[in-house]
C-alpha cells in the first residue's frame, strides 16, 4: 500500500511539473498583463509586484479593441450558424437516408479540407478584390463557413448516427414531415452534439490566422490580426500586448476546456473516439 502511495506521489510531482512548464508561457502572459510597462520588461523578471489594470484600461481606451473583438465574435458565430444551417440537412440525410453514394460524398468532403489555403491564396484574393469583399466581414464569414463545413458535416454525422432509428421511424408514423422530424425530434435529441460541433467551429474560426491576416487590413480585422499588429519592433508594449492577448484567448480557452472530449471526434473525423 505504501509503495502505491509513493508511486502516486512521484507521478503527481512529475505530471504537475510538466503541466506547469507547458502552461508557463500562458501563466506568464496573464501575470504580465497586470504589470506596468516598466515591470513587464524588468530583469530579473518580477514575480511579485503591485497588480495594476492599466494595461487593460489602455487597450480598452483605444476603442478599437472592442471593434476587433466584435469582428471576431461576428465572424466566428456567423460562420458557425451558417455552417450548421447547411450541414444539418446534409448530415441528416447521410445518417438516416444513406445511398450508395453517401460514403463517397463524406470522404470527398474530408478531402476538400486537405486543400492547403496557401495553394488558393491568389485566386481567393483576386475574386475577393473583384467582388469588393477584401477587408469585409461578409467575405471572412463566407471563407470561415466553407473552411469549417466539412468538419461540421462530419461531426454532426457521427452524432446523428448514434440516434436510434426507431425514434425517427415512430415520428414518421405519426405523420411528421422531414422538417418537423429534424426540428422536433432530431435536434432536441442531439442538442449536446450540435452544441459541441458549433463550439468547435467557433474555436477554429476564432483562432484562424491565415485568411484573417491576408484578407483583412483594418475594418474587418479580427483579434488574430489585431494581435499581429503588436509584432512591429518599435511596438514593444508587453503589458498591453499581454492584456489584449489575455482577453482574446480567455473565452476560447474556457470553451476549449469544456468541449475537449467531443473535439477529438471532430478533429480526427471520427477516426478516434
Amino acid at each position: 500500500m505504501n509503495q502505491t502511495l509513493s508511486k502516486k506521489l512521484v507521478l503527481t510531482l512529475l505530471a504537475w511539473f510538466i503541466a506547469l512548464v507547458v502552461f508557463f508561457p500562458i501563466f506568464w502572459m496573464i501575470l504580465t498583463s497586470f504589470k506596468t510597462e516598466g515591470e513587464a520588461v524588468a530583469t530579473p523578471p518580477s514575480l511579485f509586484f503591485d497588480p495594476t489594470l492599466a494595461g487593460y484600461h489602455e487597450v480598452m481606451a483605444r476603442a478599437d479593441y472592442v471593434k476587433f473583438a466584435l469582428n471576431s465574435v461576428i465572424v466566428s458565430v456567423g460562420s458557425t450558424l451558417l455552417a450548421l444551417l447547411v450541414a444539418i440537412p446534409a448530415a441528416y440525410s447521410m445518417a438516416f437516408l444513406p445511398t450508395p453514394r453517401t460514403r463517397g460524398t463524406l470522404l470527398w468532403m474530408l478531402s476538400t479540407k486537405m486543400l492547403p489555403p496557401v495553394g488558393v491564396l491568389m485566386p481567393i484574393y483576386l475574386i475577393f478584390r473583384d467582388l469588393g469583399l477584401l477587408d469585409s466581414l461578409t467575405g471572412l464569414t463566407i471563407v470561415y463557413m466553407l473552411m469549417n463545413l466539412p468538419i461540421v458535416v462530419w461531426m454532426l454525422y457521427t452524432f446523428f448516427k448514434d440516434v436510434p432509428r426507431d425514434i425517427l421511424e415512430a415520428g414518421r408514423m405519426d405523420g411528421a414531415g422531414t422538417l418537423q422530424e429534424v426540428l422536433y425530434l432530431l435536434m432536441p435529441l442531439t442538442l449536446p452534439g450540435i452544441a459541441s460541433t458549433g463550439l468547435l467551429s467557433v474555436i477554429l474560426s476564432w483562432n484562424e490566422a491565415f485568411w484573417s491576416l491576408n484578407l483583412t487590413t483594418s475594418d474587418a480585422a479580427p483579434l488574430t490580426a489585431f494581435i499581429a499588429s503588436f509584432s512591429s519592433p518599435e511596438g514593444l508594449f508587453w503589458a498591453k500586448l499581454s492584456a489584449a492577448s489575455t482577453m482574446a484567448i480567455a473565452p476560447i480557452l474556457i470553451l476549449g476546456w469544456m468541449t475537449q472530449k467531443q473535439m477529438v471526434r471532430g478533429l480526427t473525423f471520427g477516426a478516434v473516439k
Partner: protein
Amino acid sequence: MRDRASGRTVGGMRTLFLQAPAVSMLLLWMLVPLGMTLWFSFQRYNLLNPMISGFAGLDNYTYLLTDPALWTAMGNTLLLVGWVLAITVVGGTLLAVLFQQEFFGRGIARLLVIAPFFVMPTVSALIWKNMMMHPVNGVLAWLFNLFGFHAVDWFSSLPLTSIVIIVSWEWLPFALLILLTAIQSLDDDQVEAARMDGAGPIAIFWFITLPHLKRAISVVIMIEMIFLLTIFAEIFVTTSGGPGLASTNLAYLIYIRALLDFDVGGASAGGVIAIILANIVAIFLVRTVAKNLET
C-alpha cells in the same frame, strides 16, 4: 415535381435536395480556386505590371524550380514538419501514458497541459517572441544567465529552431489530447494479465500500449502534417521568414510572391506545388479514415 416534394417515395431526390447546398458550396469552393490557380500558373500575370500578359507555358514552373529560394523553402518546410512531428508525436505519446495514470489533481493538470492548443497562433508566437525568447528581457535569457550560460538571440541566430519550438508548443497538446482519448479505450484486463505474467512497465508500453495507439498515432501524424505544411502566422509575426530566407517555408514563400511581389503566375505555380504535396499526405489520411467509416 410532386414526386420531389413527397420525397419519401423517391428517396434519392430527397437526399439530393438535402445535400445539395453543402455539396454545391464545397464543390465551388474547391473547383473554382483550384482551376484558377492551375490557369494562372501557366500565365504571365503580374498585378504591378499589366503590360505583361499571355500564355507562359511552363515558364513559371521552370523559373520557380530553378530558383534556389524554392529549394531553401522546401528544405525549411521539411525540417519544420519533421522536427515538430518528432517532438509532438514522441512527447505526446509519453505524456498520454503519464496523464493516464492516477495522480493527485489529474483533472486540473490535464486542463493546463492541453491549454496551448486553444491559444490563437498570433498570440502564441508573440508571447514566445517577446516574453520567453527576448535576448535581453526574456525569461529564457534570465534562466540561461542564472545557470551561467550566454543568453541566446533566438530569432537571429536560431530562427528555424525558434519556430520549431513555438509550433511544437502549440501542437504537443493536440497530440496529447487525441492520444489520451485513444489510450482510454485500452483494455485494462489485458494490461493486468500481462502484469501477472511478469511484464514490466516498458514491456507493457512497447507490446500493448503502442500497438493499441498505432492508428491514433497515424491519424495525429497525418492531420498535423496537413496543418504543418502550411504554417504561416507564426513566421509572419516573428521572423518574417528571415534573416534572409532562413525561416521561410513554402507557404511563406508563396505569400511573398503573391502579396508582396504580386507575381500571380509565380505564386500560383508555387501554390500548385503546395497542393500536390498536401495531396500526397491527404490520400493516406482519407484511406485511414475510410477504413473506420461505416455508412
